[in-house]
C-alpha cells in the first residue's frame, strides 16, 4: 500500500486517482499506523508552508515523516510537499521538516522572459525539465517532455548534487530532487499527462539502494 499523506494541504484525490490508474493501491491517510505499515509514501500538498507545517506539527506527522525517511522508506514529495521537506521556507518564514538540507525561496519580482515580456507569479503551466543527474525516476522520459507547475516558491538544496533536474522561469531553479530514499517534484506529476504518469510509475517501482 502507498500512503498518501493527508495534512489539510489541498485536494489529494488527483494523486490518489493517478496511483489507482497505474494499478497500485493507494490510501489517503493521516494515521501514523497506516504510514508506518505502507510500502512507500507520497507527500503531496498545495497551499502555504506556514499552515502546512502547523498542521504537520499539530498531528505529529512531522516526526512520523522524519522517522520513515530515516528508516529508508521510498518517499515522493510533490509541490508544497517538496518545499516542506527542506530545512526552511521563506514563505511565512517557516522552519520546515529538514529532511533535505536547504532552503525554499520565492521567485523574485519583475522577472522577464528572453523577449522582455514580464513573467507572472505564480509560475503556472507547462515547462520542461533539464536533467542534471540520472536517476531511476527519469527512466523512459524524453528531453522534450513537459510537466505542469503551479508555484511561487522553489527549493534550493545545500548540496547541488541533489538536483536531478532544473527548469527555467526567468531564473533557473531545481524542479526535481533526489536525496537518498527520497525524490521530490516541484511540478504536479499527477497532472502532467503521460510523462507525469511514467514518472509516478517509476517511483512506484523504485527500490532505493542501501
Amino acid at each position, binding site marked *: 500500500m502507498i500512503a498518501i499523506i493527508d495534512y489539510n494541504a489541498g*485536494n489529494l*484525490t488527483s494523486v490518489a486517482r493517478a496511483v489507482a490508474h497505474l494499478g497500485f493501491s493507494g490510501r489517503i491517510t493521516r494515521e501514523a499506523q497506516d504510514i508506518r505499515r505502507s510500502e512507500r509514501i507520497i507527500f503531496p500538498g498545495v497551499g502555504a508552508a506556514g499552515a502546512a507545517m502547523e498542521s504537520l506539527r499539530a498531528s505529529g506527522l512531522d516526526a512520523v515523516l522524519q522517522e520513515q525517511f530515516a528508516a529508508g522508506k521510498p518517499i515522493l514529495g510533490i509541490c508544497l510537499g517538496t518545499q516542506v521537506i527542506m530545512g526552511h521556507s521563506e514563505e511565512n518564514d517557516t522552519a520546515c521538516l529538514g529532511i533535505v538540507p536547504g532552503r525554499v525561496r520565492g521567485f523574485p519580482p519583475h522577472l522577464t522572459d528572453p523577449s522582455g515580456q514580464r513573467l507572472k507569479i505564480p509560475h*503556472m*503551466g*507547462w515547462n520542461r525539465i533539464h536533467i542534471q543527474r540520472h536517476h531511476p525516476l527519469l527512466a523512459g522520459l524524453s528531453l*522534450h*517532455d513537459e510537466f505542469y507547475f503551479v508555484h511561487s516558491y522553489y527549493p534550493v538544496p545545500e548540496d547541488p548534487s541533489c538536483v536531478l533536474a532544473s527548469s527555467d*522561469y526567468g531564473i533557473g531553479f531545481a524542479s526535481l530532487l533526489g536525496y537518498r530514499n527520497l525524490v521530490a517534484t516541484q511540478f504536479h506529476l*499527477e*497532472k502532467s499527462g503521460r510523462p507525469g504518469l511514467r514518472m509516478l510509475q517509476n517511483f512506484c517501482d523504485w527500490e532505493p539502494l542501501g
Partner: protein
Amino acid sequence: MLSKRIIPCLDVRNGRTTKGIRFKDNIDIGDPVEMARYYYEQGADEIVFYDITASHERRGIMIDVVRRVAETIFIPFSVGGGIQRVDDMREVLLAGAEKVSVNSAAVRNPEIIAQGAEAFGSQCIVLGMDVKHVGPAERIPSGYEVVIDGGRTYMGMDALEWALRAERLGAGEICLNSIDADGTQDGYELKLTALISERVAIPVIASGGAGRPEHLRDVLTVGQADAALIASMVHYGTYPIPEIKAYLKRCGIPVRMTW
C-alpha cells in the same frame, strides 16, 4: 521556458456536450468524458468545462461527469457555470477538477472570490469575465464593460477595474471572453486582451473568436495572453490540436509538443 496553453472548451448540458460536433474519429461526440479523453490524447494542455444545465436539480449530473473525467485524464481541468457559493466550488474540486471558475456570482458577490481563495488557494479560482466594447464613458474608462447572465445584463462595471479588483481579492487566473468576438471565428479581441493582460499579474486566458491558428498566434503575442481557449475550430475537426501547436511552434511561440 513556460509554454503557452491551448485549452479546448466544452459546453455541457444535462451531462452531454452540446453543439453539433463532427468528428471523423469513432468516439461518442455527445459524451464529455470521451471528448475530454480525445483532447487529452491530442495534446490539449488543459480543458475547460462549462455547465449550462438549466435546472439546479440536475447539477448532480455534472458532478458525476467531473468525477469520471478526473478518472480519465491526467491534465488540469476547470469547471464553470452555475457556481454560486463556496459549497458549489468545494463539490466540483472534490469531484476532481483542478480549478473552478466563477462569473456572474462573483460580480454580484465579489467576496466569493476571497472566500474561495481562502478555502482552496488562489490557484483554484478562475474569474470568468464576459466583456463588451461600449466605448469610454464616465463609469467605463477603459471602454469595456462587464456583462453577466450569459451576456444579458450590463453591470455598469469597467472590465479593467473588475479584473484588478478580482486579482486583489485572490483570483488566480482570468478567463477573458469577448462577447463581440465570441462565435465570429474572426479572431480574438486583441486590444481587450492586451489591456487586461498588461495590467494584471495573474495569467489571462483569452476566449472568443478563434477560427484559425493565426488567431491564436496573434492573441498569444500581440494580445499577450498566457493561454488561448478554443471551441468550434477544434470541435468541428477543422484544425486538430497537434496541427495548431505545430503552427504556433513554427511562429516561435513556446508550446508543449510531446504528450
